[in-house]
């Protein structure tokens, strides 16, 4: 019985299984008095590591209420480890080899910076706006999501077309 369940978990999941399960995380976190969002943890990590920062947004962060975020992020990290090593059959490649290079790392540093800067500027990321914001019928989150995609298309256009022209 338990073996069968683990076998089902290990095999690939269809979108109509994965999608609703992701959606269930919204009521799960509301039940625990929080609202699902990952990017907030970046600010909280800054606040915890620099409690006396002269930057007000970092210092004044009500960290007692917010540091649950860091535990949530740590959970995601462990979840990624467990899934990739034990719960994926066949194992799916999730990130390309090409990033194991100087050019790849530079791209990750630029992209990561924009993700960190932009998500805090926008007040949320894919989870906070995309999943929680839309699930709770908040129009501002719809504007944010549309902006995410416009930004993505601009970057796609720049990298695909303009660089080829040069």
């Amino acid at each position, binding site marked *: 019985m338990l073996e069968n369940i683990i076998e089902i978990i290990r095999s690939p999941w269809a979108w109509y299984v994965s999608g609703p399960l992701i959606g269930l995380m919204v009521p*799960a976190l509301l039940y625990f008095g929080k609202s699902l969002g990952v990017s907030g943890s970046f600010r909280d990590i800054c606040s915890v590591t620099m409690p006396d920062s002269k930057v007000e947004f970092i210092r004044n962060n009500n960290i007692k209420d917010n540091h649950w975020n860091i*535990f949530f992020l740590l959970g995601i990290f462990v979840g*990624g480890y467990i899934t990739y090593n034990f719960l994926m059959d066949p194992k799916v490649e999730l990130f390309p080899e090409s990033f194991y290079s100087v050019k790849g790392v530079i791209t990750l540093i630029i992209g990561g910076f924009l*993700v960190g800067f932009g998500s805090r500027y926008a007040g949320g990321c894919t989870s906070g706006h995309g*999943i929680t914001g839309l699930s709770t019928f908040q*129009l501002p989150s719809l*504007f*944010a999501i549309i902006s995410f995609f416009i930004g993505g298309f601009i970057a796609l256009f720049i990298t695909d077309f303009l660089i080829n022209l040069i």
Partner: protein
Amino acid sequence: MKNLKFLFTGLIFGIIITKAEVVSWFRIQDMFRFKDPYMFLILGSAVLTGGLFVLIIKKFNLKNFYGEPIVIPKKKFNKGYIIGGMIFGMGWFLSGLCPGPMAALIGAGYLPVIFAFLSALLGTYTYAYFKNKLPH
């Protein structure tokens, strides 16, 4: 310890997004290039499911774990949602990463993602530093 439940919910979330492959760089590329409806089906069905439960919570005034009424924090719109959102989107496409997947992929052992993660922390700090000078 009260934060143990967030470690646990994070663990479940991490397992689900990794199994769903929404952490996959390849899936993100296919989404932005409209090659595959997969990511849109995932996001759509996630929002429908979450929305349905939010309606149930509102309709029956359900209580939370602490026995208090469930409150849904309201997001207040400002220009940052548009400007910051577009900056985020550019980074999302360039790296193929957003915050949750960064953590899941580092856990999965894709070590170059650590550079993106550290840079995202620096990006967050940089935003905080210039916050008062930026249009909101």
